[in-house]
């Protein structure tokens, strides 16, 4: 286990966002968090990354670096693609940065500034940046939201390949059930505010070789949709 949240509470202006929230993250796993919008998924990631402090509760983890793909790209407008990616890890070699750039399909755009790129390209740049940081835990907050379907599939495959190389834990927040089914070892379904883990699904299939047509995945998918319709909302 690399991260443990124990009865974490967080409220903004008397609105309880998280109430007695507990969860564990084990090493080498991808945990997908699915939930209705506004249920506090981003707040949860911000608490884990230390950007905001919980009102009460404990977060236990060893000394480690956290890498983050934000919902918005958060690239520096005055740095080009290459510089933005290099910036978070000054020790990384040029070859390594260029490798990340070509893997996210931005080859030829190294010298472009964020304002000259499309939303999807910026997001891919921010994903490459997060990978280059070499965190022990990668937080991803709806990272593929602005990508088209084909690119989304490519990115999922690439993320899996990368995970296979490094075996780092990933917390992946999304509201696309299919993304969660393709990636997750565990899928946590959150309830509406104040959020709790409403249901946990464990996906047994080898994630390097999954197909959405698979009957077991279909079953989980139906389960999730069913839960959404009844309690999740």
């Amino acid at each position, binding site marked *: 286990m690399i991260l443990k949240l124990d009865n974490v509470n967080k409220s903004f202006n008397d609105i309880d966002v998280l109430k007695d929230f507990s969860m564990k993250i084990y090493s080498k796993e991808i945990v997908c968090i699915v939930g209705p919008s506004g249920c506090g998924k981003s707040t949860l990631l911000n608490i884990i990354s230390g950007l905001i402090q919980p009102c009460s509760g404990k977060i236990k983890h060893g000394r480690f670096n956290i890498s983050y793909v*934000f919902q918005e790209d958060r690239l*520096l407008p005055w740095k080009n693609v*290459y510089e933005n990616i290099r910036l978070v890890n000054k020790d990384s070699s040029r070859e390594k940065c260029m490798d990340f750039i070509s893997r996210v399909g931005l*080859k030829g755009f190294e010298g472009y500034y964020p304002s000259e790129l499309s939303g999807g390209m910026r997001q891919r740049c921010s994903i490459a940046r997060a990978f280059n940081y070499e965190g022990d835990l990668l937080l991803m907050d709806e990272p593929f939201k602005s990508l088209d379907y084909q690119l989304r599939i490519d990115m999922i495959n690439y993320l899996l390949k990368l995970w296979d190389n490094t075996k780092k834990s990933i917390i992946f927040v999304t509201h696309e059930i299919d993304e969660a089914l393709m990636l997750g070892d565990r899928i946590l379904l959150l309830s509406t505010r104040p959020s709790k883990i409403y249901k946990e699904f464990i996906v047994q299939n080898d994630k390097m070789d999954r197909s959405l047509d698979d009957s077991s995945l279909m079953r989980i998918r139906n389960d999730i949709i069913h839960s959404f319709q009844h309690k999740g909302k």
Partner: protein
Amino acid sequence: MKDSTIKISNDIASFDKNNTLGETLNQKNKRTGTIILLCITLILWQGLSLIYSPIILPSPVMTIKTLISIIRSGLFYRETLVTLGRLISGICGAVIIGSILGILMGSFFRIRRVFEPFVYFIQATPPILYMTLAMIWFGLDGQATVFIIFIASMPIIAVNVKEGFANIDSKLIEMGKVFKFSRIQVMIDIIIPSLKSYFKSALIIVMGFGWKLAVMGEVLSSSTGLGSQITDARMNIETDKVFAWGIIIIFLCFLSQKIVASTMDFKRIRRKNYDTEIR
């Protein structure tokens, strides 16, 4: 995947081309407009100068002749350098003190509370009041001019830098925190570039304002510099010289603003170098 990337890059390249083409067309239109306006002004000026005596309104031809003789004589370079020296020392002082004050006001709430009213007070006071005081305090050589440039420019820089601080994207600062940027890195990579555009516009304003103040200061208090030449011309009722020096000052003011604007815009140049380095 590769194909699609290439396609996108082609699309962007053609987009760039169209864009620059549009820009040049636009610029051409703008230029023709300016030239037409200039011609109308010259014709009007010529017409009026036929009605009035050259003491009231010298003709364009006469003004240009005087202008050329001024530029040919050593006077032009000498006086310009004197005024430029005063301008630059005033503005440098304003930039240094104004930036420090702006950064302090932007970073610390308490300092802002103490200094903000003070800065606005300095800004609200008419420059001519400072001029009068400066003439009493520093006498009738260049110091009074340097002083009014400084005192009028400093609050503009300070207020702009402070405003820049208020508009720094907090999400970028958060990003720096997550990726464990050092304080110095946050300052160099996030805060200072965020302030740059505010600083740049302040500097352009101050440049334009500075020239006017420099000349006003010299007309009132100095026997050297461009302003003193205008005073001399007025005393000798050489209206053509007043016009000629006026044109010189307008040109210098325009030029220095353009220089500031272009030197503070590295983006395009850097992109080019970077491309060749990478590929």
